[in-house]
C-alpha cells in the first residue's frame, strides 16, 4: 500500500475490487486509478499500436493510457478511463488490448517492428498480391487493432432522457464555476451547475492552496450548502456537458448510477437536453506533457496529476524510489513542495530554465532537460542532460509540467477557432464561438485561483446582464494569485522515440516524417499519423504536435494553424444517446379501435408503419397462414367480411370553397361531386407523379371527407395544409385530420347489405336509394352517430361504416354477432391485399412515387380542364412519353409463382438492364382463380394483352413465363360492386 496522510478519501470504509483478477482494496472517494496507485499498481494498459506498457498519466477525463474493461457480463464496458471510474465495492476491471498477459503482451513484438510501422506505412504497402489484403493483411490488422471488447449480450440497464431549462448553465464546478453559480444563484436566476466529477471543486480539490486561510474544501462546502438551499439552482454532479448545439441547447449526460454496482430499479445514465439562455464555460485547463525519449513509461505522469493523487487521493506512484520533477514552469516546483509536504521524497526538480530558482529544500537542476528514461514495466530512473553533460537519476516516478492548455473544446463546437495567445503560451477561445456561451477562468487562461474565482463571478454577471438580470458582486475568498511563470518547451530533441500522442503511439519523429512527406496542414498531419484520433481526442497531444510542426516549418504556431474539437467532449455511451427507447419501445405502437376484438380472435398482427394491424385471423385447425387468408378472401367473395380500415387517413374539409380547394388538390374534378356521393380521387405531387389515392365524399354542400392511404396519411394532410395556408389562403376552407376520431370498418361481400340492414336505424339501403358510391350520415344501433360510404376496395358490393372511435370495437362485435348466420368473417391485411390485387386496385407497391397516372391506368383522371397540383408538370416529355402500364400477370403453366420484384422481359430477349421491360409490383395466390396472380408495370403493357413474357428473378435463380392480362382479375365490368 502506498497511502499518504490526509486526502479526500473516507478511510473508515474499505472497498474491495479486482484488477486483472487480483483483489485489492481502496476507499470511498477513490477512483480506480488512485486505488491502483495506492496498491502499488503502475502498469495499467498497453498502447494501441506498439503495445507499449503504460501507466496512468493524468488524474482526469483526459487520460490517454489507463483504459480498462469495467464490470463483466452484459455490463462489460470497454475503454473506461480508470481515472474517472469511481471505486465501489466489488468493482471488476481488466486491462485490455494485449495478447497473453498484460505484463508479457505478445503483441509487444509490434514495438520491435516499429521502424516498419512509421506514420502512414499502411498506405504504402499490403498492395500485393491483390487478394491478400482482405484475406490476410486486413484480418490480422483488425485482430490486433481495437481496444476493449464489447459485451456479449444486450445491455441490461435502463436509460432516460429529459429536458432542462435555465437562465444560466455553468459548465464546470471548479473555482470559476462555483463563483459563477453562486453569483447567479444569489441573483435569483435559474441556474444549472454541471461538473463531470463526482465532487464539485475542480482543481481546488487537487491543490493544497488555502482559501481564506483554510482548506479549500471548507469554502466549497459552504458554497454548495448555500446553492442547495436555493430553489432556483440545480446541481448536476457526475454530469458531462458533451456538446453545444444550436440556440443554446447543450447535450449533457448524467452518470446517475455508474458509481454503484448496478442501477437497481433506477436508470444508469440520463441524457439531458439543456436549453440555457446563457452558459458559462468554466471547464478549466489540461496540463501539457513534454515529449522526450521514452517519456511513456508507467510512472511518468503529469505534474498536476501527481499533486492531485497526493492531495486528493493520498497516494503517489512508485514510492520505493523518490520522485523527480521535469518542468519548464513554476508549476513543477509546487509539485515538489506538495509532495514533500506529504512525505514523498523528491530526487530533483529538473527545470529547463537556466534561471530557475529553488522554492524549497530540494535539489534543483536548472537548465536541465530529461533526455531519457529507464525501467521496463515501471520507471526506475531518468537521464538528465544539462550543458555539462548527462546524469542518471534514480526515481520511481516523474512529474512532467509543460504548462496548461485551456479546455476550449465547447467553445469550438460551432467552428469558432481557438487563437494563440503568445503571452500565455496557449490557445484560448477565439471569436465565432456558440452564441450565448461565455468562457471563464482557466478555460480562457485565467488560471490562478484568485483570478479564476473573480473571473467566474464577473463572467456570470456579464452573462446575466445580457438577460437584464442584475447580479450582486459576491465576496470571494482570499486565494493564491501567483502569475503564471514559465516558458514553453515543446519537446526535448534527441534520437529516441519521444511520444506526443500516447494512446495512438505518435512520436515527434512521426510528425517530422509527415512534414517531410508534405502532410503539413494540421488536418493532414492528424490523419496521416492518427495523432489526436484516440479516445482522448488529442487532449494531451494536439497542441504539442502543432508546436512541433511549427518548429519544423519554421513558422509560428499562430501561422501553422489551430486545432478545433468536435463533440462529444468525452466519450458518451451509445445507449444513453438512444435515450432508452429501444427494443419493443423503439417506436410507438398505434392500435386500431378493434384491437381488443382482433386479439380476442387470436389474430396475427403485422406492423404497418406505427400501426399494429390484424394480418389474418387463424381458425382452429388452420396450420398455414394461406389457409386462413384463402378462407377470409372466399368469405368476402361469397358472404360478407369485416376489416378494420381505420388506419386510412381521413381529413374533414369544410368551408364555402371546399369544392374549389379539392379541385386544385385532386387531379380529377371534385367540385362537381353531388352531395351524398363519393368519388375516387388521385393526387399528384407538384412534380406530376402520382403519390396518393383515396376517396372523397361530399356529405354536404360545404363539407367533404377525404380519405388517404395509410402510409401517406400524415403527408397528404401536411400537403393539404400547405395548399390551404401557403398557396391559397384566400379560399374559405378549414381542415382537420379525423383519422383517430372515426373508427372505420369495411363491410364487404354480397351479403354486406343484408348485414347492415340489421344495424341501421331505419335507413334505406336499397340500390336505388343508396347506390354504389353513395354516402350518408345516419344513426345505427338505435342512435349511434355514423357515416356510411358505399365504396369497395375488394370489388364486391361493399360499404365502409365509420363511428366515433370509441365505438369501433363494439360495432365490430355487434356486426359479428348480427351476421353470424350470414357467414360474417373478419379479415386482415393479407386478405385485403389479395382482394385488391384480384380487383386490380393500386396500393403502395404501385403508388411508389415513381409512377405517372398513365402508368396506373388512370391517365384520364388528370383533368385537362382545370389546374391542379402537378397537372402542368405531368405533361413534361419524360412523363407524357412514359409507356409502361399496369398489367395483370398469370403464370403460363397455371401454377408457377410470380415473385414480387421479378423483372419482366420479352421472350427470347437477353437479360440485362437495356432489355428490361418492367417489374412485378404485387403478387399473391388468388383463391378466386385458384392460381397465383400478380400486378406489374410492363413497357407498352396496355397493348400487349395475352402476350407471354418472362418474369425473371436471377436473384433467386428463377424464371416464370407469365401471360399478360387485364389487371382486373375479377368482375372487370364492375357488376358485383353495383349489385
Amino acid at each position, binding site marked *: 500500500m502506498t497511502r499518504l496522510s490526509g486526502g479526500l478519501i473516507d478511510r473508515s470504509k474499505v472497498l474491495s475490487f479486482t484488477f486483472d483478477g487480483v483483489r485489492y482494496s481502496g476507499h470511498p472517494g477513490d477512483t480506480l486509478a488512485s486505488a491502483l496507485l495506492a496498491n502499488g499498481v503502475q502498469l495499467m494498459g498497453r498502447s494501441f499500436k506498439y503495445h507499449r506498457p503504460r501507466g496512468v498519466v493524468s488524474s482526469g477525463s483526459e487520460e490517454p493510457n489507463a483504459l480498462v474493461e469495467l464490470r463483466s457480463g452484459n455490463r462489460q464496458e470497454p475503454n473506461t478511463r480508470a481515472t474517472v471510474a469511481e471505486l465501489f465495492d466489488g468493482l471488476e476491471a481488466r486491462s485490455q488490448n494485449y495478447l497473453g498477459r498484460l505484463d508479457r503482451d505478445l503483441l509487444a513484438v509490434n514495438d520491435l517492428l516499429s521502424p516498419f510501422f512509421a506514420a502512414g506505412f499502411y498506405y504504402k504497402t499490403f498492395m500485393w498480391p491483390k487478394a491478400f489484403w482482405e484475406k490476410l493483411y486486413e484480418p490480422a490488422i483488425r485482430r490486433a487493432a481495437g481496444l*476493449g471488447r464489447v*459485451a456479449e449480450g444486450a445491455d441490461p440497464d435502463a436509460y432516460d432522457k429529459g429536458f432542462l431549462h435555465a437562465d444560466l448553465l455553468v459548465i464546470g464546478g471548479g473555482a470559476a464555476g462555483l463563483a459563477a453559480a453562486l453569483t447567479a444563484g444569489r441573483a435569483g436566476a435559474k441556474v444549472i451547475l454541471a461538473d463531470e466529477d463526482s465532487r464539485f471543486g475542480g482543481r481546488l480539490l487537487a491543490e493544497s492552496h488555502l482559501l481564506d486561510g483554510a482548506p479549500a474544501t471548507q469554502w466549497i462546502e459552504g458554497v454548495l450548502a448555500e446553492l442547495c438551499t436555493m430553489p432556483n439552482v440545480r446541481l448536476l454532479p457526475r454530469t458531462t456537458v458533451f456538446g453545444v448545439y444550436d440556440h443554446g441547447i447543450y447535450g449533457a449526460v448524467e452518470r446517475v448510477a455508474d458509481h454503484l454496482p448496478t442501477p437497481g430499479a433506477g436508470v444508469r445514465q440520463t441524457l439531458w437536453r439543456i436549453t440555457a439562455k446563457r452558459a458559462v464555460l468554466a471547464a478549466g485547463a489540461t496540463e501539457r506533457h513534454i515529449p522526450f525519449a521514452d517519456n511513456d513509461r508507467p510512472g511518468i505522469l503529469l505534474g498536476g496529476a501527481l499533486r492531485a493523487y497526493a492531495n486528493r487521493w493520498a497516494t503517489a506512484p512508485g514510492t520505493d524510489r523518490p520522485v523527480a520533477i521535469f518542468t519548464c514552469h513554476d508549476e513543477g516546483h509546487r509539485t515538489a513542495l506538495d509532495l514533500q509536504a506529504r512525505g514523498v521524497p523528491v530526487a530533483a526538480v529538473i527545470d529547463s530554465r537556466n534561471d530557475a530558482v529553488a522554492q524549497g529544500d530540494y535539489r534543483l537542476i536548472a537548465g536541465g532537460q530529461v533526455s531519457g528514461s529507464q525501467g521496463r514495466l515501471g520507471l526506475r530512473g531518468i537521464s538528465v542532460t544539462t550543458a555539462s553533460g548527462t546524469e542518471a537519476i534514480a526515481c520511481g516516478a516523474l512529474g512532467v509540467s509543460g504548462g496548461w492548455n485551456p479546455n476550449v473544446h465547447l467553445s469550438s463546437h460551432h467552428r469558432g477557432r481557438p487563437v494563440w495567445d503568445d503571452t500565455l503560451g496557449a490557445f484560448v477561445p477565439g471569436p465565432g464561438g456558440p452564441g450565448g456561451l461565455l468562457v471563464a477562468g482557466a478555460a480562457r487562461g485565467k488560471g490562478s485561483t484568485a483570478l479564476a474565482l473573480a473571473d467566474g463571478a464577473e463572467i456570470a454577471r456579464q452573462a446575466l446582464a445580457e438577460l437584464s438580470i442584475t447580479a450582486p458582486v459576491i465576496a470571494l475568498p482570499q486565494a493564491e494569485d501567483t502569475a503564471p511563470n514559465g516558458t514553453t518547451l515543446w519537446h526535448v530533441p534527441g534520437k529516441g522515440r519521444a511520444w506526443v500522442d500516447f494512446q495512438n503511439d505518435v512520436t515527434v519523429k512521426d510528425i517530422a516524417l509527415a512534414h517531410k512527406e508534405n502532410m503539413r496542414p494540421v488536418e493532414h498531419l492528424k490523419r496521416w499519423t492518427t495523432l489526436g484520433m484516440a479516445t482522448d481526442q488529442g487532449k494531451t497531444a494536439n497542441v504539442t504536435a502543432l508546436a512541433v510542426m511549427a518548429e519544423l516549418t519554421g513558422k509560428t504556431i499562430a501561422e501553422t494553424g489551430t486545432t478545433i474539437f468536435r463533440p462529444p467532449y468525452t466519450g458518451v455511451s451509445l445507449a444513453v444517446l438512444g435515450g432508452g427507447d429501444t427494443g419493443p419501445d423503439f417506436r410507438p405502437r398505434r392500435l386500431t379501435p378493434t384491437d381488443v376484438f382482433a386479439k380476442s380472435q387470436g389474430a396475427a398482427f403485422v406492423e404497418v408503419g406505427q400501426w399494429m394491424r390484424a394480418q389474418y385471423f387463424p381458425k382452429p385447425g388452420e396450420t398455414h397462414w394461406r389457409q386462413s387468408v384463402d378462407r377470409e378472401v372466399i368469405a368476402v367473395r361469397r358472404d360478407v367480411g369485416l376489416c378494420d380500415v381505420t388506419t386510412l387517413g381521413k381529413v374533414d374539409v369544410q368551408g364555402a370553397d371546399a369544392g374549389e380547394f379539392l379541385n386544385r388538390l385532386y387531379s380529377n374534378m371534385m367540385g362537381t361531386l353531388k352531395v351524398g356521393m363519393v368519388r375516387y380521387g388521385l393526387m399528384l405531387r407538384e412534380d406530376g407523379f402520382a403519390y396518393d389515392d383515396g376517396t372523397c365524399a361530399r356529405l354536404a354542400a360545404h363539407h367533404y371527407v377525404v380519405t388517404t392511404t395509410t402510409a401517406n396519411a400524415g403527408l397528404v394532410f401536411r400537403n393539404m395544409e400547405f395548399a390551404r395556408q401557403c398557396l391559397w389562403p384566400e379560399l374559405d376552407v378549414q381542415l382537420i385530420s379525423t383519422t383517430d376520431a372515426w373508427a372505420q370498418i369495411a363491410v364487404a361481400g354480397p351479403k354486406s347489405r343484408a348485414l347492415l340492414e340489421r344495424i341501421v336505424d331505419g335507413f334505406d339501403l336499397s340500390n336505388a336509394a343508396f347506390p354504389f358510391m353513395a354516402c350518408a350520415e345516419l344513426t345505427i344501433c338505435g342512435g349511434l352517430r355514423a357515416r356510411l360510404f358505399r365504396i369497395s376496395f375488394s370489388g364486391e358490393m361493399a360499404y365502409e361504416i365509420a363511428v366515433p372511435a370509441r365505438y369501433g370495437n363494439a360495432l365490430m362485435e355487434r356486426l359479428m354477432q348480427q351476421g353470424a348466420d350470414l357467414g360474417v368473417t373478419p379479415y386482415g391485411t393479407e386478405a385485403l391485399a389479395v382482394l385488391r390485387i384480384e380487383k386490380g386496385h393500386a396500393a403502395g407497391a404501385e403508388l411508389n412515387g415513381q409512377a405517372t397516372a398513365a402508368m396506373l391506368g388512370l391517365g384520364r383522371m388528370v383533368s385537362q380542364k382545370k389546374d391542379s397540383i402537378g397537372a402542368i408538370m405531368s405533361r413534361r416529355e419524360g412523363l407524357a412519353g412514359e409507356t409502361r402500364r399496369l398489367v395483370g400477370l398469370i403464370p403460363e403453366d397455371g401454377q408457377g409463382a410470380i415473385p414480387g420484384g421479378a423483372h419482366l422481359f420479352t421472350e427470347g430477349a437477353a437479360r440485362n438492364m437495356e432489355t*428490361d421491360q418492367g417489374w412485378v409490383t404485387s403478387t399473391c395466390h388468388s383463391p378466386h382463380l385458384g392460381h397465383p396472380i400478380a400486378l406489374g408495370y410492363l413497357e407498352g403493357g396496355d397493348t400487349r394483352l395475352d402476350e407471354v413474357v418472362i418474369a425473371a428473378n436471377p436473384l433467386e435463380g428463377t424464371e416464370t413465363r407469365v401471360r399478360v392480362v387485364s389487371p382486373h382479375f375479377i368482375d372487370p365490368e364492375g357488376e358485383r360492386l353495383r349489385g
Partner: protein
Amino acid sequence: MKFSGLKVFAEALKGHTGWKPLWRNPEPKAEYDIVIVGGGGHGMATAYFLAETFREARVAVIEKGWLGSGNIGRNTTIIRSNYLLPGNQPFYEMSMKLWEKMEQDLNFNAMVSQRGILNLIHTDAQRDAYRRRGNAMHLSGAGAELLDREGVRAMYPWLNFDNARFPIKGGLMQRRAGTARHDGVIWGYARAADQRGVDILQNCEVTGFRIEGGRVLGVETSKGYIGAKKVGVAVAGSTSRVMQMAGLRMPIESHVLQAFVSEGLKPLVDGVITFGAGHFYISQSDKGGLVFGGDIDGYNSYAQRGNLPVVEEVLESGMALMPRIGRTRLLRMWGGIMDMSMDGSPIIDHTPVQGLYLNAGWCYGGFKATPASGYAFAHLLSTDRPEATATAYRLDRFARGHLIDERGAGAQPNLH
C-alpha cells in the same frame, strides 16, 4: 517513387530518410487546358483520369482549403453498387469495378475492403422492393443475394431478432460492397495525379468565373486569375454558391449529414449493415471504431454540424438493432454538407456556359461514386461526350421530366 512493402522495409532500415513529398506545392501557372474547381475526391479523381486515361497534360486542381477537406474526409467510407434504376446502377457498378483495382492503379493502399453490405428487411413489401433492386443488381452484373431471417442470423447472430419493434425478416446482401479508407482515396488520387503532372493548388479559393460571350475563359482565385480552356466544377456541398458565380441556379439544396464514430473496439461488425426500420447504417473500421450514421438533419445548412434530435434518432435506431453496443462510447461526431439534388441523383453534364462543366448533386452517396465520377467527368471534359454509364445525369432532366428518383420521393431534397 513507387510504394511497396520492400520500400517501407528499406526505409525502415535507414531511418525513413528517403521519403519524398506525396505531392508538390506548385505555384499556379497563368493558364491550363482544364481547371478543376474542388480538391475533393471527385475533383482529384477527375484530374487523375484526365492525366492518366485522357492524356491531358495541362491540368490543375484548385482547392480553397487543404486537400480533401470536404466530404471525402468526413463520410462513413461505404462503397457499394446496389442501386435500382437503370440511370444509376450501371454507373455505380462501373465505380465498383474501379474500386476493385484502385490500389494497383494508384500504387497506394486505400484499404478497399469488400466486406459486404447487408440491407435488412423487416416487412414483406420491403422484401419485394429489395427483390426488385437485387434483380436490377444482377442484371447490371453487380450481384446480390437475398437472405432469409436465418441467413441473416447466421452472419450476425447478435442483432436484435427476438425483442424488436420491427423484427428482422431477411436481408439483401452485396458481398462485393464494403468500405475504403476515405483519406487514403484522396491521397492516392492526389499523389498519382501529381506524378502525372497535375498541379494541385491548395489554399486557392475560386472567387469568380471570367465569362465572355457565354464562354468561360478562366477562374478568379485568391491566388489570382487562372486562365482555362475548360473549367470543371466538383464542389459538392458548395455547388450552389460556386455556380451562382457563373449566374446559374441549381436544382440542389445544401444539407447537413452527421456521422459518428465510436471508440476503438475489438472486431464486432464485419461488414456494413443497414437497418430497414429506421435510418441507420454501420460498419467497423480497421482501427476498431464503429462508424455509423443515419438521416440528414433535414434543413438547409452550410454549417458542417448538426443537432441533437438526429443524434438521438440515429442512436435509437442503433440501439434497437444492436442492443449489445450500448456500453461502448461515442468518440466523435461531425457533419458534412451534402449537395441534395431534387431527385436524389447526381449531375455530370455541360452547363449553359460554354466550357463550364458540372459534377454535382451527390446527396449522401458521393464517396462510393468517387472513381466513376472522376472517370465520367474526365471523359466529358476531355471528349465533350458523356461517359456511357453516366448519360442519364443530365442537368436538363428536370425540365424534360426524366428523373432518376430511386426513392420516389419527388422534388424535395430532404426526402432523398
